[in-house]
């Protein structure tokens, strides 16, 4: 098991190097860099010398290969470099906002699981009835309605009905759980809706498939109650593929919250990413992309390990 984990960790390296190569060089394909944006932003007349000096300070005057090697050297020691816009370390900027985004992702996952498991199950058990159609309508909405619009509608609903909007400033959970939850539960519900839709569809189809399997017939034949057949034999197996979706969707949420954070005006990872894109802040974009990729790869590993722990058919050496 430990050897398997070690091997998997080794296998992460080529993927991450691929991500590093692609993002680094893609960002530099097109001429025009942060120095131009920063110094000529308001159409100010800036001397060529000043621009060159700033380039030199940021290391942008070096050949691309040298820049890349320097960046990779830092990456090995988990040093992501400094933001070209604020000058603060990239890791510090990320760390300052990580808690908020991470908490929304967790809340959204909990919300999605709590909603999707019962919805997907009843939809499969009462296939073709109005229950099934209602659930399918709800899940279709989750996939088709733009999350930012759902967010705006939710805020509008809160304002109309309770004359209240969630607080804008972030309070850590350990300081004041109530203030924290009353701010973050709304964005979590909005992204959780889409997440739940994906999950409920998967649970429905995998449950339908499993209910036709031989071992379900065997369970019924040996006289197991219908409740036990469904809840123990069928659902237990139907939830296995859901683990993959939960793990990967969770990983995607860290980066995918970009739009929702904008709606709720939250200063999280997503907002930082948008700012970095708008300012052409290369080191920041690179650092964040590496983080998203690392989270995804680790989530993949955790999912595989969970399978090994839960599913007796899967064994790793």
């Amino acid at each position, binding site marked *: 098991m430990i050897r398997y984990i070690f091997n998997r960790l080794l296998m992460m390296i080529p993927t991450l190097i691929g991500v590093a190569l692609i993002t680094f060089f893609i960002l530099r394909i097109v001429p025009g860099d942060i120095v131009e944006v920063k110094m000529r932003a308001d159409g100010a007349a800036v001397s060529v010398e000043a621009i060159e000096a700033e380039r030199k300070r940021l290391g942008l005057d070096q050949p691309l290969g040298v820049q890349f090697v320097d960046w990779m050297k830092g990456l090995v020691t988990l040093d992501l470099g400094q933001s070209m816009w604020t000058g603060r370390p990239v890791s510090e900027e990320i760390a300052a906002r990580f808690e908020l985004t991470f908490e929304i992702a967790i809340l959204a996952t909990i919300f999605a699981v709590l909603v999707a498991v019962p919805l997907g199950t009843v939809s499969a058990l009462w296939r073709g009835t109005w229950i099934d159609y209602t659930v399918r309508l709800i899940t279709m909405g989750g996939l088709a309605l733009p999350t930012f619009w759902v967010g*705006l*509608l939710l*805020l509008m609903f809160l304002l109309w009905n309770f004359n209240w909007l969630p607080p804008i400033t972030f309070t850590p959970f350990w300081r004041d759980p109530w203030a924290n939850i009353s701010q973050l539960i709304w964005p979590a519900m909005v992204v959780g809706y889409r997440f739940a839709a994906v999950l409920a569809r998967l649970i429905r189809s995998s449950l339908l498939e499993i209910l036709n399997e031989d071992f379900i017939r065997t369970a019924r034949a040996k006289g197991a109650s219908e409740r036990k057949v469904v809840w123990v034999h069928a659902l237990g197996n139907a939830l296995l593929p859901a683990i993959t979706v939960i793990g990967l969707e969770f990983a995607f949420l860290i*980066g995918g919250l970009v739009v929702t954070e904008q709606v709720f005006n939250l200063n999280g990872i997503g907002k930082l*990413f948008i700012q970095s894109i708008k300012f052409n802040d290369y080191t920041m974009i690179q650092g964040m992309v590496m983080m*998203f990729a690392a989270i*995804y790869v680790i989530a993949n590993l955790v999912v595989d390990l969970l399978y090994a722990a839960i599913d007796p058919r899967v064994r790793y050496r």
Partner: protein
Amino acid sequence: MSQAATAPTISIEARRASFLSSLAGFSRQQPVGALSLIVILVMLVASVFAEWIAPYDPLDIDYFAILQAPSWDHLAGTDPFGRDVFTRLIYGARTALVIGLSASFVGCTLGALLGAASAYFGGRTDAVIQRFVDVLLSFPLVVLALVVVAVLGRNLVFGIDIGLVFAIAIPIIPQVSRVIRAAALSIRNMSYIDAARTAGYSNTRIILRHMAPNLIAPYLIMLTAYIAQAILLEASLSFLGLGVAEPTPAWGLMLSGNATDYFITAPWLIIFPGIAISLAVIAFNLFGDALRDWLDPKFRN
């Protein structure tokens, strides 16, 4: 000679008849699909004939009519510049369709070519392409699109923002290439391909005449389905202020900026564009599903 002269007319008539009868067959078997097709056609007509249908000019600013509630004069009210929201919704359909169709086309075509090449060449080429696809798949959709936006910026060609089209198309490429690769792999191992090879046909002929026709169905299905995703992504990027730029009317853009300021004073500014986006996405999603079930029962999940 006389045969050559009559042959085309017969084939066109036959084609028209078969098109109409297959359309009828489609509507009978897939009523939901037919309904969504109607929504799509309405959108198409609205965007092609926007100049004739829309009651106002989408860019006409009227400071004497700002933030008016829906009325007979302004069916969906007016925005803070006094522009007619209904007009801007109609022109927004054009933006959504142009960007959605071109992004889906670019993404699906490049993805299909990549997937087919990967399956056909196999071996080392396949391994390299698949690793590349793995890397692309490890990003959240919006993140990948935003990186492309950062790189390509705004490049207008014939009034279409090519940077935006590619930003939406590139996240589609790895997903499509996976599906097409799997389909191509299964076709490559079919006995009729072996038969064609035994008959001594060239690789080109086998690919174009024997493999490609069997990949067209999944390609078309994905082309339709990804229009929905492209419209949704365009709306999201425009909402973030990194997609379509003002003053071009676009649904996502209509919700961006300080939409929250109008919760009480002008809720129609928030409700209508969202309905438009959702309706378009649902229509293309359902039509894609119906097309899949109708074209090939094997693709039913």
